C-alpha cells in the first residue's frame, strides 16, 4: 500500500490533497467535515480586514451539456470577523493536529501582516499562504493579484512576512502575468518556503443575451471574476511545469487549477508539484470526492511501484522541454482500425477542413481508400499524413485511431542542433 503522506516545505500531511482557500474553507465547521472525509489539509479562506460581498457571486461555463466545465467567482476574502475565524482555527488545529491547516492571509500594512501572522501561529496554523493572486475586487484595492503582478512588491511583502513567520510560508501566485517564473523567483528571493499556483484567471463568463448583462448579474451589471475548474487545468499545468523545471527555482510547489480527480493530481505531481489544492470540484460535488482521490492515487502508485509521492514527483519534468529541443526526425502517422470504426467520418472532415487533408473516403473518386467491407471507413494516406493527431482527438471511439511511429532510419536531431550546424535534416516534404 502506497504511502501518501507528504512533508511539504516542512508542513506534514497524511496525503497531498488539500482544499484550496475558497468557499469550501470558509468556516471551521466546513473544514472539520472535510477532514472527516479524508482531506489531508486545508488552506483557510483568506483572512484580511473583513469585507462585504455582493449577490450573485458565481457563474459557470457549461459545454455541450456538461455543467461547470469552468467556474468563475467575484466573491472576496472572508466576510466574517477575524476573531471568529481565529477561534475556529484554534478549534480545528486542536481537533486535527495531523492535518495541514494553513491560513491564507491578505493585508495591506506591515503592522497588519505582523499581527495576523502572530495570531495565526498562536492559534495553531501549520503554515501560511500569502494571497497574491486574487484577480477581482481585492486587486483594485492594491492587494491580491496587484501584488502578484509586481515582482518587487511581492518580494518586499514576502520579506516582511518572513521576519515574523515561524511556520512555513507559501506564496500563492497569480496566472494573470506573462511569465510565471518571474513572480516565482521573486517569491524565492523574498525568502518564501514554497509557492502555490495558480490562482484564478481574470475572466468574464458569459453575456446574458436577453438582458445584455454579463454574468453573474449583480443588479443589472457584472464585473470580471476569477476563472477556475477543469477548463483551467492545462494553463495551470503549464505554469507549474515551467516553474518546476526552471534551473534557478528550487521551492516546493503546491499545484492548483482544475484538479478534479486523482489522475489530475498525479499529473501535477509528475510535473513538479508535491501537494495539490482543490476547490471547484468540491464546489461541484462536495468533500466526498477525496475518497476516490486518495484511493485511486494509492492504487495507481501500487500498480506503478511508487511507494511515496516523492517517488514520482517531477518524473515528467525532464520530458517537458522547449520546442527547439524536440526531435525533428520523429514521425507518427494515424492508423484507423476498420473493425472499431463506426463510420461517423468526423476524422475525415476534421482532417479535410481543420488540418492537412490526408484522409480519404471510399468512393470519393481518388481511389485511395481500399475496400474494408464497410464503406464508411475513412483511409489515412500515410505518405501524406503529418502525424498531427487531430483525427485521433475527434474520434469518438476509444482506441480506434492510433498514432503509429514510423521508423525512418534517422537519428534524433533537434532544431537547436540543426540551426547550430551540428546536424542535418532530410528535405522537408510539405503538403501540396
Amino acid at each position: 500500500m502506497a504511502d501518501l503522506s507528504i512533508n511539504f516545505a516542512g508542513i506534514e500531511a497524511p496525503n497531498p490533497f488539500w482544499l484550496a482557500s475558497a468557499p469550501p474553507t470558509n468556516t471551521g465547521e466546513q473544514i472539520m467535515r472535510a477532514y472527516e472525509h479524508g482531506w489531508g489539509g486545508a488552506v483557510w479562506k483568506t483572512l484580511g480586514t473583513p469585507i462585504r460581498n455582493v449577490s450573485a457571486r458565481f457563474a459557470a461555463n457549461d459545454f455541450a451539456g456538461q455543467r461547470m466545465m469552468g467556474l468563475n467567482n467575484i466573491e472576496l476574502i472572508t466576510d466574517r470577523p477575524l476573531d471568529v475565524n481565529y477561534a475556529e482555527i484554534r478549534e480545528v488545529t486542536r481537533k486535527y493536529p495531523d492535518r495541514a491547516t494553513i491560513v491564507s492571509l491578505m493585508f495591506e500594512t506591515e503592522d497588519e501582516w505582523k499581527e495576523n501572522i502572530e495570531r495565526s501561529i498562536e492559534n495553531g496554523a501549520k503554515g501560511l499562504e500569502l494571497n497574491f493572486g486574487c484577480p477581482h475586487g481585492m486587486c483594485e484595492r492594491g492587494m491580491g493579484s496587484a501584488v502578484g503582478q509586481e515582482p518587487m512588491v511581492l518580494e518586499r511583502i514576502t520579506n516582511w512576512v518572513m521576519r515574523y513567520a515561524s511556520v512555513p510560508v507559501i506564496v500563492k501566485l497569480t496566472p494573470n502575468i506573462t511569465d510565471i517564473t518571474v513572480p516565482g523567483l521573486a517569491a524565492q528571493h523574498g525568502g518564501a518556503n514554497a509557492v502555490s499556483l495558480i490562482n484564478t484567471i481574470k475572466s468574464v463568463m458569459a453575456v446574458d443575451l436577453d438582458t445584455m448583462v454579463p454574468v453573474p448579474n449583480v443588479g443589472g451589471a457584472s464585473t470580471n471574476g476569477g476563472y477556475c475548474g477543469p477548463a483551467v487545468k492545462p494553463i495551470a499545468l503549464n505554469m507549474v511545469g515551467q516553474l518546476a523545471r526552471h534551473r534557478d527555482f528550487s521551492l516546493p510547489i503546491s499545484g492548483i487549477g482544475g484538479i478534479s480527480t486523482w489522475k489530475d493530481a498525479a499529473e501535477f505531481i509528475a510535473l513538479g508539484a508535491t501537494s495539490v489544492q482543490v476547490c471547484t470540484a468540491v464546489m461541484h460535488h462536495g468533500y466526498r470526492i477525496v475518497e476516490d482521490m486518495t484511493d485511486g492515487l494509492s492504487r495507481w502508485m501500487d500498480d506503478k511501484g511508487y511507494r511515496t509521492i516523492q517517488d514520482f514527483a517531477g518524473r515528467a519534468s525532464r520530458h517537458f522541454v522547449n520546442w527547439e529541443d524536440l526531435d525533428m526526425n520523429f514521425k507518427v502517422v494515424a492508423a484507423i482500425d476498420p473493425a472499431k470504426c463506426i463510420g461517423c467520418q468526423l476524422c475525415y472532415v476534421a482532417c479535410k477542413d481543420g488540418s492537412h487533408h490526408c484522409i480519404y473516403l471510399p468512393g470519393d473518386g481518388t481511389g485511395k481508400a481500399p475496400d474494408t467491407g464497410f464503406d464508411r471507413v475513412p483511409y489515412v494516406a500515410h505518405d501524406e499524413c503529418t502525424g498531427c493527431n487531430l483525427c485521433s482527438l475527434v474520434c469518438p471511439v476509444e482506441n480506434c485511431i492510433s498514432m503509429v511511429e514510423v521508423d525512418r532510419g534517422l537519428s534524433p536531431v533537434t532544431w537547436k542542433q540543426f540551426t547550430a550546424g551540428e546536424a542535418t535534416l532530410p528535405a522537408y516534404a510539405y503538403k501540396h
Partner: protein
Amino acid sequence: MIQSLPMALPADRLESHLPDLKPRLTEAQAKAEANRCLYCHDAPCIQACPTAINIPEFIKRIGTGNMAGAAETILEANILGHSCASVCPVEVLCAGSCVYNRLGEPPIMIGRLQRHATEYAYDRGLRFFQKGRATGKRVALIGAGPASLACAHELTRLGHEAVVFEGRAIPGGLNATGVAPYKLKAEEALREVAYVKGIGFEIRTNCLVGRDITFDQLNSDYDAVFLGMGLGPDSMLELPGEELSGCVGAVAFIERLKNEAGFRLADVRQAIVIGGGNTAIDAARELRHLGVPRVTMVYRRGEAEMSGYAHELLAAKQEGVELRFWAAPVEVLGQGHVSGLRCEETRLSASGRLERIPGSAFTLDADLIVKATGQEKLASLLSGIPGLTLERGRVVVDPATGQAGSSKFFAGGDCANGGKEVVNAAAEGKRAAQGMDAYFKAAGRPVAREVSVR
C-alpha cells in the same frame, strides 16, 4: 355535397384512451440528447431518410437553442415532419442507421428530437414557407393523405394552384384514420393538415372522385392530376363465416377506433388478429392497450417470414400479445356473432411451398376477429384513367418525377408504392410536385429525369 374544412373530430373517441408511448421530451431531455449526436459527416441517418432531412443539422440547432432553425431544417425537407417524427419506423430508418449502433450504444432518439422541434414551431404558429408567384397552372390532387398534402404544399410553394379532393369528412388520410393512436392521434394529424394547408391551398372534403365529382371533370378542369388516393378496403379472406358480426377488417376497425364517437369494445375478452404485417401488429397492440385480456396474432408462416418490423413485434410481445405462427385460418365460427376461428397448421413443403398439414385443425376462441391481411388496390378507379400502366394494381411512375408515362398524371404514396410509410408518401408527393413543375416548364413535354427530391 362538397364542403371544405373545418375538420372537426367527434369527442369521445376510443383512441383517446390510448397512451402516447413516446411522449414529448422535456427541454432538458432534448438538449441532453441533442448534445449526444456526433454530427457525422455525410451522415447515414440522412441517407436512410426517404425525405433526406438534414438530421445532424437540426439536432445541432436544438443543441444550440436555435429551435426555429431546427424546425425549418426539418420542414424544408419534409413538410410532414411533424407526423413523421411520431409515426416513422425510425428503428429501421434514421435511428437504425445511427453510427452509435455500431458502438453498442443506443442510437440518437431522432424521431423524438424531431417532434420536439416541430412541436416548438406548431405551438408558436411559426411558418417558414410562402406561396410562390402564381403560374396560372392548376393541379387536382385525389385523396388528402400524406402524399397529396406534401405534393400540394410543394406545388403551392412553386406557384401552382392545388386543390385536394377528399372523400371522407376529415383530411389526413391514414394519419387521421389508420396510424396507431399510441404513435399519433387523429387530432394531431389534423393539426398537421391545418399547418400544411396554411400555406394556402384548398382541400375539399366529402368530395369523393367518382361519386361527388367525376375524374373526367378533373381531367378537363386541371393542368395536371396527382393520384394520391392510397389503397382500397381491407382484403377479404374468402372464408366461411367471414360475414359474421365481430369479424372486421383492420383498417376499417382502426378507423372506427380513431374517428367514431362512442365506439367501444364491449366485453371483448379474446381477440384474434389475422396477419403478419405492421397493420396486424398495430391492431394487436391497440387491443392490448385497450384492455382486451387475450389478444392472439395468427399468421400462416413463421416469425422470420413476417413483414412486420421486428421492433414492433418485440413491443407487441412485451405488451402481452400472444403469437400463433404456422397457422392458416379456414373458417370463422359463430352464430350471428363470432365465437372462434378454425385454423389448420401449416408448413413449407419440400419444394418450399406453404401447405396445410392434413388433420391438424384446431380452434381458437374469439369474440373479435380482426383481419389484417392487406388492402385491396383501387383498381376500378385507376383502370378508368387513360394512359396509366398498372402493375399488380399499382400505378407505375417514373421514380425520378412521379409521372405516369408521358401523361399529365402523376402519382405517389400507397397507390404507387403498394403501401409504405408516411415518410415515403411525403417524399413521393414532394417529388411529384417538382416533377409537375418541370412538366409545366417543359410546356407539356415529358420531363427529363434529373428532377429528384433532396
